[in-house]
């Protein structure tokens, strides 16, 4: 059991999740700007946007919309907390999945075709990513014999390299980046996914999304655990940076695919890769492969 000091530190880390994800997204914006030969905003721009939104009054269309959006935030924040405290990864992932479900409900609860289109697209994205990430979580649990984040083996990436690789397309989808920026799809959906939210409501949905990203990154980082705290932190920071650079580069060098191609790619290649990895591990564990 970790000491109470450690627990407080972890709680602080949870509270800082919006900050960290905000900076990460800011970094991504800077990178994208540089890739496109622009100056770009400051690293803190995403955070400033969020604080501005949260301080605005905004408006809602009806109570369900507000209820589902807040529900999504509560679930994603709880999921992030469960993950950060080193508790059950599977619980965290399932909670985050229900959070996405509620976000879809929030979009559907307004009688607006743009909002509904977004919700349907989000559903396809969920179908594309949920199974892959869940399979990764299951293989994490299988490889270490426990689903508790704090009990996971060290450097699982060495046993589950394909799981780590599959997280890249998944993060592209969850970060709403091309070739899988289906949910936002800037040109044809006019104003993006959260079209019926404004002001604080929009901020809430953004915050929920950020916590969800934290859960996704958290699951990826579980593959890179090291015993030495300093080394552990350094490796994890490098992994996150590498992923951000990678997604920014992919985002800027690819055109958007259709959602069906996304679904097919994700459910064949990504899920297949994780599956392959898990079967190899299974065969090794059962002694078929020495």
């Amino acid at each position, binding site marked *: 059991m970790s000491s109470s000091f450690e627990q407080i530190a972890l709680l602080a880390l949870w509270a800082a999740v919006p900050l960290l994800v905000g900076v990460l997204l800011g970094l991504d914006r800077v990178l994208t700007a540089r890739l496109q030969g622009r100056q770009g905003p400051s690293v803190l721009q995403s955070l400033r946007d969020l604080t501005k939104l949260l301080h605005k009054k905004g408006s809602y269309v009806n109570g369900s919309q507000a209820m589902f959006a807040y529900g999504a935030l509560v679930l994603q924040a709880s999921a992030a907390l469960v993950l950060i405290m080193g508790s059950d990864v599977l619980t965290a992932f399932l909670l985050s999945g229900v959070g996405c479900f509620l976000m879809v409900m929030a979009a559907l609860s307004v009688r607006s075709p743009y909002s509904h289109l977004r919700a349907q697209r989000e559903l396809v994205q969920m179908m594309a990513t949920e*199974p892959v990430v869940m399979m990764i979580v299951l293989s994490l649990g299988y490889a270490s014999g426990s689903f508790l984040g704090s009990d996971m083996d060290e450097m699982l990436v060495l046993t589950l390299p394909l799981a780590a690789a599959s997280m890249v397309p998944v993060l592209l989808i969850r970060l709403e980046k091309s070739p899988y920026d289906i949910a936002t799809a800037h040109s044809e959906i006019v104003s993006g996914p959260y079209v019926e939210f404004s002001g604080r409501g929009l901020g809430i949905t953004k915050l929920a999304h950020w916590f969800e990203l934290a859960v996704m990154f958290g699951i990826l980082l579980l593959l890179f655990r090291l015993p030495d705290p300093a080394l552990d932190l350094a490796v994890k920071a490098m992994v996150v940076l590498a992923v951000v650079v990678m997604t920014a580069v992919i985002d800027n060098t690819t055109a958007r695919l259709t959602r069906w191609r996304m679904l097919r790619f994700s459910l064949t290649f990504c899920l297949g890769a994780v599956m392959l990895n898990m079967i190899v591990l299974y065969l090794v564990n059962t002694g078929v492969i020495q």
Partner: protein
Amino acid sequence: MDELILDLLVAFLIVAPVVGALVCLYLRKLPAIGKAVGAVSVLMAISALALLSIVVTAGPIVRDAYGLETISVGITILDLILMLAFLYISWKAKSALAGVFAGLQLVVLTAMEVGGVSEHGAAMNVDQLSVMMAFITSVIGSIICVFAVRYMTHYEDHGRFFAVMLLFLGAMNGAVFSNNLLWLFFFWEVTTLCSYLLIGHTGTKDARRSAVTAAEYTLGGGLALAVGILLCHSLFGTVFIDQIPEGAALGRLAFLPLALMAVAAFTKSAQIPFQKWLLGAMVAPTPVSALLHSATMVNLGVYLLLRLAPKLQGSGALSTIVALVGVISFVITAVLAMTQSNAKRVLAYSTISNLGLIVACAGLGTSLALTAAMLLLVFHAISKALLFMSVGVIKERTGSEEIDAMEGLRDSMPLVSAMVLVGVSMMVMPPFGMFASKWLLSEAVASHPLIALLLVLGFGATLVYYAKWLGRIFTGGIRRDRLQRDGTPRTYAATLMATATVGILATVLMGPLLDGLINPYVSRVFEPALQMGEWGLFTTMGLFPMVALVVLAALLVIVVILPRRAPQVREVYTCGEGSDVQVGTFYYWTEAKVAKITWTANMLMALLIIVMVFSPLIQEVAA
């Protein structure tokens, strides 16, 4: 004294509904029937609770066959009458298939009775699993019957309808208490008869056709069960479930009766390729669907599998195939549910899907899986009853079961919409039981890559089809100052809220549910793997901090959300295009594609089941 109380309670649960059924037949007038049904319901619910508390405190109770010979003889005679009734029905419906099945059942039964059956053993076994089932049947089933009293005003022939409904409940209770396979078989076939009568109740051409289909499928399953019992008797020399030797002690051929019983279970629980009858049963009045899908019928199949799960231990190919049948049914029907536009059909597919999960658990046969199965069974029954009854109320008001016609019901029928929200939440949201069992099951399959793969795909699809349906109901325009008066009739409101309350109570009392019912049953075969701790559920591999999450959610709501002033309410923006818009939904695949996939799945699964049945034979020959 205790024995007397016990016998009395068991009798209340089996005989009282039968007496109630006769009274209904005699009364014929709906208001009078309503009172009778109400009285029987209350009696059954109280008896079930009393029996539950006895078994939880004093452990399982067995009732020796000694002294019950007259009942055995009575059941044999009733069996014969039942078979003749089936023969008559198949002759009248011109269904050769049903006739052959019923005839063969008659032959098998006669062969057994002529050969003589040893009756030394426990005739009845009132253990944790049986009382759990009896509780579901008696409480949820009774609520559905009360619901039907109002719903059936639009239909005719009330005496017969309620007689069959009550008989159904009695037969279910009888089946789950029977330790004697012949008794179980009798009650099993009574449920077949009841489902046939209820599905065909309206007498329209569609209804009659569906009823015959249902009879064909389930009689086929009944035949498999009868042959299974016959083989059981000749191989093991017993017809008592608890005397069947456990897995490891069995060899090759000895798995054949178990395989046949598994086939019978698949037909009752409508697993692919036997799902057609349950989908066709949608033509029946909604209370019938609610009863078939939640409190009775389909539960009986998975009950038998859970009962036999200890015996399946170490059966290798057999239990693996059972698990595969379950999980493939789960994923295929979950995907097909996404393509459906009729709410009742979505629910029907989701029933097959959820039962598939339970079947898969029975096949996996680990401590975690068995625990998950029992949790699933309880929470699925409750939420499915709630959802079906809600659809019934919606149908009565709007005249449609189409999901697209349900747009904006949150404004016009707030109570019912809230109930659908609760029902769906019970299926997908923490901290409800389904979510907990989903978590548990995922842990259980972590060491089975193939099953895990199918499972994760199915879970994804499940979220999608519920989101699509719930989303339509909650699609609304600008908030009005005051909600419209709901106008839901009082009987409906009361039964819906009662079901929701049972669901919420079951979630709150998950600790006692585990300690009192589920773990004692699981512990007969395995080390119980799931415990309720201070902050939530935990296993050897993981932790589901249920209580902690509820506390956290409450804190977040109180500290962060409530203090804010309510924001302004504004009309839908729709990018400035005005509110004169229509929204639709995606159904992904056409009906033709669905039919094609169904056909392929049926063929595949039929093959799998044939392999399952013949694998013991092949092993025997090979050895």
